[in-house]
């Protein structure tokens, strides 16, 4: 095998193999007896390293062998390749958010009672990480559950200057029991 063929073979192997490969592994896995020496492989590895000196990828030696990797400086620019399109929030999350916004301050237990299903901790975490929901206190009932409310960031993100700008979508107007308990200020619902 001539040096160029050997170099091409090593290059392709290092490119295709998911883990780094040492000179010894390359020798054992790729070559038949007498085709090329270990020294020749080392020589070609050195040449490859120099071939890739000015390129977007480089051939580096790590503990378990050689591997190709993209040049570290390019990482930030390459991030664009993996920039995922934003996903969609689940209905469960949106409903939880809606309840916190419209019924604040509210405990998790109350949200669960209304929705009839338990609210995952992940949802509460996501809403708080997003900065839309915060804990404003504790309800003085057994267990002292946290009371959740919406934040100013929520208003900003939804382009609202005040919660009263939220559409009024109370569909329970005809519900007598509820109405009896209702505060009657500023009635503007249809």
């Amino acid at each position: 095998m001539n040096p160029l063929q050997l170099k091409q073979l090593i290059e392709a192997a290092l490119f295709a193999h998911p883990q780094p490969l040492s000179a010894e592994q390359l020798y054992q896995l790729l070559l038949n007896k007498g085709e090329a020496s270990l020294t020749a492989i080392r020589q070609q590895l050195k040449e490859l390293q120099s071939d890739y000196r000015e390129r977007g990828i480089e051939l580096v030696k790590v503990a378990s062998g050689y591997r190709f990797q993209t040049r570290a400086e390019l990482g930030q620019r390459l991030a664009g390749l993996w920039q995922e399109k934003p996903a969609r929030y689940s209905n469960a999350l949106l409903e939880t958010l809606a309840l916190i916004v419209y019924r604040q301050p509210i405990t998790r237990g109350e949200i669960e009672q209304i929705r009839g299903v338990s609210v995952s901790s992940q949802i509460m975490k996501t809403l708080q990480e997003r900065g839309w929901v915060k804990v404003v206190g504790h309800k003085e009932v057994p267990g002292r559950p946290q009371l959740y409310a919406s934040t100013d960031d929520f208003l900003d993100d939804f382009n609202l200057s005040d919660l009263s700008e939220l559409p009024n979508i109370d569909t329970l107007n005809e519900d007598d029991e509820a109405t009896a308990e209702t505060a009657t200020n500023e009635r503007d619902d249809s």
Partner: protein
Amino acid sequence: MAEQQSLPLGFVRGEPVIEKPEDLYIPPDALEVILDTFSGPMDLLLYLIRKQKLDIVDMPILAITRQYVEYVDMMQELKLELAADYLVMAAILAEIKSRLLLPKPPQEDEEEEDPRAELIRRLQEYEAIREGAEYIEQRPQIGRDILLSEVDNNAREWVTSVPPEVTLEDLTLAFSRVLQQTELKAHHQIKREQLSTRARMSQVLELLSQKKYVSFSQLFTRKEGRAGAVVSFLAILELVKESMVELSQVEPMSDIRLSLRQHNQDESVTA
């Protein structure tokens, strides 16, 4: 490939079995191999034609039909699971044969009337497809001839997550869904307050989480006017009712103070 002419039909105990063109004989053990080898009746038919080094258009229907039927009979005798498609083809061949044997002598110049025409057309199409299959098979294939790689990179460290968009419409839709669900339930505890009251409740609670006490009057500002005062007042009432805050008055006529309701040690043990 050079060995094409002596292509074995199958292997019996390691020995290749080569068909004799005159006298069809297939050792029983070879049949399973044959069935595996042929991808269907068209394949078998094509094989029989080529075996005699004939072109499809010159297909000697009598000989081919005889050989084909012998194969199929043999397969059936051995009760190998024979696809019904092989029998369909046998019937087609028999039909063509019988039409050829009818007294009307076939004329060379009347090719359209050749009862074999339809079968020949099908065989030609099948042969073309076989060729196409071969072209595809010979292409450099991922995993077989070509290897790809995802070279190590540090780009993912730089990826920032873009949170999903939520519109006001999404939110109000979600809320009306919740309301619909609760309406379906027989009884529910959902109370209907004006949103401004609920929001004010949050504000008061938040204020109290920073300060121990808030004076009652602090919660009313002139700027908000009468409506604002009503909202604040209702919010405080609601907070008291829901046992979230306590009101206290040190002496008559002094300012009323709001504080978070002291939590009861005995109650809090449950968790």
